[in-house]
């Protein structure tokens, strides 16, 4: 298996928003969900997850609430807020446009130039 990719700068927030958009998750759950979907192709620093969560909560994009996890532990569950949903749609669209452009540039052949 190839070495996992380091996360691109600024994409962690987007991934967190996406992860919680599928249903409320606690911090560790967010980590697991991203890694599960990414099939271990992404390396996420566990520590950097929490400042990001706090930042998003501070910006009102996600909302946290204390609850009990599936194995009976206390955990803080995050869910997407309305403005978070808008932000996610926005970011996703931007990301796709960006990816298209970069892909187009990188795949350019001499004939196209």
């Amino acid at each position: 298996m190839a070495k996992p990719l380091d996360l691109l700068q600024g994409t962690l927030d987007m991934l967190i928003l996406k992860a919680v958009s599928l249903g409320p998750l606690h911090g560790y759950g967010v980590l697991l969900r991203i890694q599960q979907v990414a099939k271990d192709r992404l390396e996420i620093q566990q520590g950097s997850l929490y400042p990001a969560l706090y930042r998003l909560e501070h910006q009102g994009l996600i909302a946290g609430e204390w609850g009990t996890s599936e194995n009976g532990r206390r955990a803080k569950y995050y869910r997407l807020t309305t403005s978070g949903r808008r932000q996610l749609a926005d970011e996703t669209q931007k990301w796709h446009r960006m990816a298209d452009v970069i892909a187009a540039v990188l795949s350019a052949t001499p004939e196209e130039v």
Partner: protein
Amino acid sequence: MSAMARLRSWTRALFRRSTLEREMDDELQSHLEHRAEDLLKAGHSTAEAYRLARLEFGPVAVQKDEMRVAVGLRLVDELHADIRQTLRRLRRSPAFALTTIVVLGTGIAATSAIFSVVYGVLIQPLPYPQPQRLIALTHRSSNGQDRLPASTALYFTYRDHNRTFESVALWTADTATITGAGTPEEVRALDATFELLPMLGVHPQAGRVFTSTDDQPGSAPTVILSDGYWQRRFGAGQVLGRRLTVDGVPHEIIGVLPRSFRFLRQDADVVLPLQPNRARSFVGPLGENGIARLRPNVTVEDASRDIERMMPMLLSSFPPAPGTNPRIQGLHPDLRYLQDAVVGDLRDVLWVMMGTIAMLLVMACANVANLQLVHAEGRQHEFTVQAALGASRWRIARGMLGENVLMALIAGALGVGLARVALPALLDMAAGQVPGALEIRIGWPVIGFAIAVSIISGFVFGTAAAVRHTRPAISAALGTSGRSVSTGRESQRIRSGLLVAQVALALVLLVAAGLMLRTFQAVRSVNAGFEPSADVQTVDISIPAGATRDFKTAIRKFNDIQDRVGAIAGVDVVGFASRVPMGRTGPSGGFIVEDVTPIGVAPPQREFRFVSPGFFTTIGTPLIAGRDFTWTDHHASRRVAVISERMARREWGSVPAAIGKRIRMSSAEPWREIVGVVGDVHHESLVEPPPDSVYLALGEPLAQFMSRTVTFVVRSSRAGSQDFVKELQAAVWSVDGTVPLANVQTLADYYRRAMERTTLTLLLLGVTSGMALLLGLVGIYAVVSHLVSLRVREIGIRLALGAQMGALRRMLVGRVLALVLVGLAIGIVASTVLASLMETLVFGVTPRDVATYLQVSVLLGVAAVCAGYLPAQRITRMDPTSALRAQ
């Protein structure tokens, strides 16, 4: 929406900090446990699972810090740390902190107190709606007299024909005699046309204000009470519809003014309708005050043009007054905003005060800055360590500045407290100078000002040290471990600069004080023309026309009162006059001089007074030629006059030549003969030349000018005592029991009030410059002693190498002297520039008086060198070996 969310989250983080911290811990703990559980399932041992979980997670403290940053707590935390550190440091050096706070606090107190006056008088608008549209209707004549008031004729002309005013009103300050229940009393009255109160936006707290009907001559008499008088006389009871006997005539009380109402400089007890009579209005004399509210979007210039346009209408609509100067020639508008008219030349005094106080504050800052430099030098090592540990220069400087601002704010709080205490005393001293309509107090604007001044001065005095001591020179500073041969050149330069600045500022303030002292002496030495003695009792007595209609009877009563008062034990001599010198202002008229004044030319306005026999003797004004009035002159209405020496010389060349000559006020009246010449009296002001004065006997033809209120002057060694005043009262009441005594004072009081502004300015400048001198000397002393203590090692080396102590001392003192001389030079230049601001305040001395500058410079120079010599003296007690070992 996002900003709101952030603010909500931030405030929650800030105010529920412990919850936030606990939740952070819980959440990270929960994460680690979840992770460890998964690792356990993957087959690790318990201990191993927890270890791995922590390892994967990374440094918890760093993450938590970033989480705090994420919710915007960084700045708060750092500030918090700064404040905590600052307080700890200040506790460690209390003497430094205390000195800083006291020096600065005193400066801020003085500045805030003066600012509260400046704000109340110059900045704060008058307490009426849209005050910028209120103007004083003052005039200027083509022969150079300005700030002339208005008249009923002008009032009617403006009211009928103006195109620029929303309303026009006329008012005069007056006194009124109240009789009826209780002792008769004389009260302050405001006579106003009906437009005045609505123009000022006054809504009575009870009843109504005047209508145009009340203001018609001959209509039923009405009166409005001030809140104060209503409380005093009626105990705040129901008064509407009741009658009050004013000047012998019952008036219906129709309203009570609101408690907050003040009218310019007047503190009236009652307001009466002025009732201007159109049929009896004449062009001139100008005796009433005009006030107008401009229409919206009309400028003062528009109004002036409008008035110029109306002047011909005045002359065509109204006749000249019988018995007065036939024509006012060339009257022009000299309009001013009401606020300016109220403030008058107090403005100059205030700005000079504000300037001097600001200079004092700058000096206090310079002193504290110096203290800071010394203090920071002692902490150089600490800063260096901080820098070595990675603190940015900005972070270190912020720590220092934060410390300064905190101290400055404490000083500011102290200052505002002190100002609150000092302000009543200040206002008490200035009571006669500050218009009553303006409210002066330590309100929010002043507190805001004090806070701003504190923060700014905190930055100002801290910057020098912050710039100097945050420069990264780590290895050098660490290497010397606080032990250096000599001080840094840079901080010496800063300190020299501060010393020069302090000397210069102190000189400016001392020069200002010196000029005021000379002014004070010059005013004191002016021969007032009367003897301002505390042995001359003065008291106002009024026999209103309402009570004693016949004028001859009134004169009879005045004569009887004078006789009775003269019979009181201990009374040397007694007299009375319509006005005493430095008392209220009164009428003037143009006197035609027989065979001198060219026919058809308007003679200059001269003020005139009615005086009784004995008045001149009582106040100590010498009779130079001719005779004094006799009672026969008064009772027989003889057409005689006494004039002042100055007028005699001006019109006839000499005093004896004036006797027997004749003057009159208009060609319509018969001549009156000059029977005496008296010495010149400064009636209005000590600093203006004495006016040409005419004194008349109380005669029927001029009764219209006579308010029937006179001031009695009684010379007695018993003047001023309560018993004496009681006997005076008894003597007056034995003639007429309805006559009140008002304004009981002595002639010395009148004189003191005339000196008040000069005295006050001198006092304030004296205190300020005294403080400045002290601050300056303390500053010099501190600089030199620090210089000596820092150079102990250098001096030790020099001594060891054979230098003479005397030479070393001379070197130090010479250095101080050089700096002081530079400071003096700068101060002299600055003074000559700033002194022009004092042009209107000084008298008998020019603002660039060489003697004052020289004396002050020498005084300051000698004091400064002494302050420098004392610490330098310590060198002589120095032992070279111990000096070499010194740190």
